[in-house]
């Protein structure tokens, strides 16, 4: 384990990966979680974990795959944690998230509709769609990231796409 020369130290790898992927991974997490603050928390934790594990990851491609997997898993945990919290707060009305609704543009409406629709999908379908359509990953890469078979990726993708199209029918018909 000691004889192999390494191109990057953990700190260097962290900086390179951060520069190249921080924004993209936060956006991925927003597709999964909707909330930007929570998305940043999740991705930050993933970077910290990847740094701690650099000795085992060693190559940047593996580290990126680990980061993606970690973001998806942590997003899932975060949603579940929030589900628990929500039950405790069940008596209270949800906070208003649509402040300034009258000023929102058409694009902003569509963004909100897409994020709402994503949240309405079952967990696996949401994850597969985000990895496939946002990160443009292959079936094999998605299977690795989620720890499921390629067949399962295919079926989640097709069911998820169909459901998302149904939910977004207005936006898809009029994509101006």
């Amino acid at each position, binding site marked *: 384990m000691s004889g192999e020369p390494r191109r990057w130290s953990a700190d260097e790898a962290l900086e390179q990966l951060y520069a190249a992927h921080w924004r993209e991974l936060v956006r991925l997490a927003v597709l999964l979680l909707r909330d930007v603050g929570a998305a940043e928390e999740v991705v930050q934790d993933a970077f910290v974990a990847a740094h701690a594990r650099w000795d085992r990851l060693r190559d940047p491609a593996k580290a990126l795959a680990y980061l993606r997997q970690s973001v998806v898993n942590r997003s899932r945990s975060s949603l579940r944690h929030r589900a628990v919290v929500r039950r405790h707060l069940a008596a209270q009305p949800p906070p208003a998230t649509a402040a300034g609704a009258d000023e929102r543009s058409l694009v902003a409406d569509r*963004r909100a509709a897409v994020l709402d629709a994503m949240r309405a999908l079952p967990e696996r379908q949401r994850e597969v769609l985000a990895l496939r359509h946002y990160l443009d990953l292959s079936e094999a890469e998605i299977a690795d990231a989620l720890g499921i078979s390629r067949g399962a990726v295919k079926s989640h993708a097709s069911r998820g796409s169909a459901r998302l199209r149904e939910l977004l029918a207005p936006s898809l018909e009029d994509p101006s």
Partner: protein
Amino acid sequence: MSTHERDADLARLLGEAVDDVEPTDRLDEIRARTGGATTGRRWWYAGGAALAAAAAVTAVAVLGPGSAPVTAPDPAAPPSAGPTSSDPSSADPSPTATPETATGAVYFVGQTPMGPRLYREFRALAVDDSEPLGPVVRAAVEGVPEDPDYASPWAGTGATLRSATGDDDLVTLDLAGDLHDRPATLDPDLAALAVEQLVRTAQAALGSPAPVQLLLDGERTDQLLGVPVSEPLAPGDDLDMLALVSISDPAEGQRVEATFTARGRASSFEATVPWEVRDDAGAVLVEGFATAEGWMDRLHPWEAEVDVSALAPGRYTFVAMTSDPSGGESGGPFTDTRTIVVP
């Protein structure tokens, strides 16, 4: 419209949905957390040397009781890995818990002065009535620990859980993947801990010391990751397998109140469990000690009231330790840490 064009449509909508998200720059914050200010937290860096040294010690312990076939489990033996009444966060990980999610105890590997050992992490898991053991064992096989100090030896093996079933007589866990032989990159002691991790996680979820039969692709197998598993397995001895102190509450990254109750388990000299709250630079800001309910034979519950009302808002590290009367000669105290957020 072709499938490809329709997919391109969805890709465009998803891309647009987040293209206005400009995350704040957190590189400094990440650096602060990875900077090694709290020594001991970056244990994977120890890499070959520390793990290899540990292997020599723990392989015996692991391959001894840890993997001993059991044909007649002792019904009087308490489920050592089971949730204890003093861990309210463990709620009830059985299928009768609240719907949607329940808190389950998942075992992961962390570094200790005695080499890698198992720590227990409590986490919210989806409840699946059709497969009550599934979510918690799946988290052990396929999941990533929330605490960055822990790791799963299963990560990188490509292992997935096909099914997890069981009752008080026998638990059966069916795994899939290229898992027969130990990957060259996986230390033998970590492979053995990987197996122990599943045995203890399943028993804790079930609240029963039922022996655990591991299958590969639905079939019995002579070994898994090179560890013999043809017979049902019992867990190894607590004092050989577990980190001697662990924190159940708070959870990693938890926002805490001005005063909060920390809980965990320990086997520490004279039942004394020192604890500290440290800042990023490792300076001790608050300290105290808890007294566990026992210490010699196994891990016992401890509980501490921690007052952080005097601290400025920010991230801190809560540390629980074993008492080390040798003054470091025996490798120093065991520790478990949690990042806490003081709002």
